[in-house]
């Protein structure tokens, strides 16, 4: 581990305060799954008292990287960084699990291949093969609740969002020009979110460019595959650095937080420069555009909001999405729910690798949503939205999770 991380390690006094804030400790009640335990293990690894093995791999994979511990830590220990660096060490010592390795090396690095997999999945879901697989019970033959996991896969869109829309919208005299980093989920799973972004932005006389782009790199970075993460970051910087735009907007809180880390990852001036232009769509609409909305109806539908971990700690990350939802009055009536900023348990692929635990974490959120009496739970991170919809369906709830921007887009024809 690098020197800088030694300084972070030293700050932990083992006070145990993290126990009160860790969603996984709340479920397991076991020290290895809370920040303090992991830090003690890292120190033992460094002292060569223990070596990377299966058990440590499991312990270090059991973290949502939600950052609640750090946020509430009296000594501000940056746990997310420590866990990511440990995963990097783990990978260097033992290699990645074969599935992840294949995904990172052969899929993420090739935008085209990712799209192809998307199409295959869409075929699987639409062709009736999925129905057949579910109906025959063949999925239950597979280990690790594959049957349930298969259901967590969202309905993949047949056509990638970025293939559907032109690279530029071509307004005559736009007030501003932005580049749109769509992220993989909007591109392959929920093109409706992308369409909503374009509709809202264009209607406010802002020109949008959708440049060539890759995955932001978070699946690789979170797993400690820093090499692939750097490659993807560099590619993205390459395609965005020469654009003449005022902002780079995103609808995905996770992509946003990854972009904000590009400068530290790449240590390049281009990354530094671009990270300053990066902006969440909610913040852009409220703080830059100062958007005015005319909701088409007065239905008073109750909507609550879930804070994505990756958005809530950025400037205005908590206030702007709520502000935007309040602009939708009287068509929507914003209601705050308890535990709004508690992690939903999605955490990238955590909900696949630790399905049961992830659903236990989500359960608190689902109960909170139910208590709020909202009919819609809005959020600003596509992977939170997937998790919420899956867990809502599991619990038999009729509530639907949607991106804030989808609701905003309803105000425009």
């Amino acid at each position, binding site marked *: 581990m690098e020197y800088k991380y030694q300084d972070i390690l030293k700050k932990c006094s083992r006070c*145990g305060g993290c126990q009160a804030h860790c969603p996984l400790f709340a479920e397991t009640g076991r020290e290895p799954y809370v920040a303090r335990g992991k830090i003690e293990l890292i120190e033992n690894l460094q002292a060569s008292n223990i070596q990377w093995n299966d058990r440590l791999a499991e312990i270090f994979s059991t973290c949502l990287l939600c950052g609640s511990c750090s946020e509430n830590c009296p000594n501000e220990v940056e746990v997310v960084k420590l866990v990511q660096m440990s995963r990097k060490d783990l990978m260097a010592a033992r290699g990645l699990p074969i599935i992840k390795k294949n995904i990172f090396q052969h899929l993420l690095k090739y935008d085209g291949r990712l799209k192809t997999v998307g199409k295959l999945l869409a075929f699987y879901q639409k062709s009736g093969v999925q129905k057949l697989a579910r109906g025959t019970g063949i999925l239950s033959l597979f280990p690790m609740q594959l049957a349930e996991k298969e259901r967590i896969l969202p309905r993949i869109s047949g056509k990638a969002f970025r293939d559907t829309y032109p690279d530029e919208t071509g307004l005559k005299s736009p007030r501003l020009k932005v580049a749109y980093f769509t992220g993989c989920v909007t591109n392959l799973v929920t093109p409706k979110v992308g369409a909503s972004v374009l509709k809202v932005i264009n209607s406010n006389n802002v020109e949008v460019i959708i440049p060539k782009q890759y995955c932001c790199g978070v699946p690789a970075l979170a797993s400690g595959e820093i090499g692939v993460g750097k490659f993807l970051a560099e590619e993205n910087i390459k395609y965005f650095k020469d654009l003449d735009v005022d902002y780079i907007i995103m609808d995905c809180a996770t992509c946003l937080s990854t972009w904000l880390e590009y400068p530290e990852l790449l240590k390049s001036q281009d990354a530094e420069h671009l990270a300053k232009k990066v902006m969440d769509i909610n913040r852009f609409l409220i703080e830059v555009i100062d958007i005015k909305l005319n909701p088409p109806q007065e239905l008073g539908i109750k909507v609550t909001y879930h804070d994505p971990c990756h958005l809530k700690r950025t400037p205005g990350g908590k206030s702007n999405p709520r502000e935007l939802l309040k602009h939708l009055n009287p068509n929507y009536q914003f209601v705050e729910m308890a535990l709004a900023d508690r992690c939903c348990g999605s955490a990238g692929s955590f909900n696949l690798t630790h399905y049961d635990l992830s659903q236990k974490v989500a359960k608190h959120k689902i109960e909170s949503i139910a208590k709020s009496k909202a009919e819609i739970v809005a959020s600003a991170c596509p992977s939170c939205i997937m998790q919420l919809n899956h867990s809502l369906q599991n619990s038999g709830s009729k509530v639907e999770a949607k991106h804030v921007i989808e609701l905003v887009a309803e105000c425009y024809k």
Partner: protein
Amino acid sequence: MRDGKLDSTYLKRIIKTIGKENVITEYEDRICYSYDGTFQRGIPEVVVFPGNTGEVAEIIKLANIEHIPVSPRGAGTGLSGGSIPEAHGIALVLTRMNKIKEISKEDLMAVVEPGVITGHFHQEIEKMGMFYPPDPASLKTCTMGGNVAENAGGPRAFKYGVTKDYVLGLEVVTPTGEIMRTGGRTVKNVTGYDLTRLLTGSEGTLGIITEITVRLLPKPKDKKTALVYFDQLKDAAKTVTSIIYEGVIPATIELMDRVTINCVEKYTKQGLPLDVEAILLMEVDGSPAQVAEDIQIIEDVCKRNNCRNTEIASAYEERERLWKARRAVSSAIVQLKPTKISEDATVPRSKIPEMVKSLKEIGTKYQLHLPVFGHAGDGNLHPNILADKNDHDEMERVEKAVGEIFQAALALGGTLSGEHGIGIMKKPYLQWELGEVGLNYLRAIKKAVDPNNILNPGKIF
């Protein structure tokens, strides 16, 4: 000292008693039960999570057969090493026993299991208009069982006392594995020796607490907070004594010295004056009329004692703003050095100025960062030494300084520990305060109830 390996026959019997899912044997997992809030370590041979009193008793009986040491543990937030499995053996974690069994508004009492988190308990009874005063800083995490075992205090202790003032009765598994009840549900109880008080603060050496009956108070109806700046530390100290002379007992009186104020300001940038020598943060609670009268007296006393400025707040948000500086202290002071050694030597209130002076001299003598803040009302200052645990020379100086802090406190008629306990950390100094006779008395009690020296051996003395 044991070799760190548990005999497999006994392990099997433990597993049979409480179930495989409640027993941890893997080394990596056991490492995560080797620590508490200190820098002491001891890796247990096995970690067990019993679910009820009967299971605790069974484990203790098994431990007695083979003389396996047992260290009881709650959330592991202690600051004296009390829960560290120093003798290896069994770490017995009580967090699964976390039910609030009863809350009675009629009898103003509650019955809880040891694993109930203190902060959670506060919330539940406050919802019902009642109040449990002990409020250790770790209350969001620490457990009621740990609080009783360590006799925990907190900022409100000056007015309301500490954990022992609220424990009415206990259910305890004795060191030989029998189940015993002490005290009861009444405030008055003089039947036999006061074993409830003996066990409260016994640091896991005399029994494992499996149920706690505490008395409650009605929740105070109103609260006001004052933040006061002083150019001279001695004026701040005099203010504390004068307020009490006037018959006002604030719920909290927190003091911050200049080093602490500077750290906090650098960290929070909330506009604290950097040239003052001390800040007092005081909170009064009670009926609205009482609170209004008390805060007026406090304001007058502060003015008479040359305070520079007084800020008073009653609304929650405003009070929180005043608390901001105090709450930031812990994070702010680690800017000086990463390793924090928290001491809690306590002196009679009137000796605070002398104690602060001694602390400053000790810090200078050993070239250590030694900010002073803490509970001025009850003389429980928290001198914190900031050092780097990897700097051996500095850590040696820390050890010497700690010894001198204790000497200074004892010379002023104080005590080694106000609320953290003795554990491993203060064990070498115990004789200074208790003398040989006192120590022997403790040893005799321990030997009588724990003939095999099973429970938390090597702690306290």
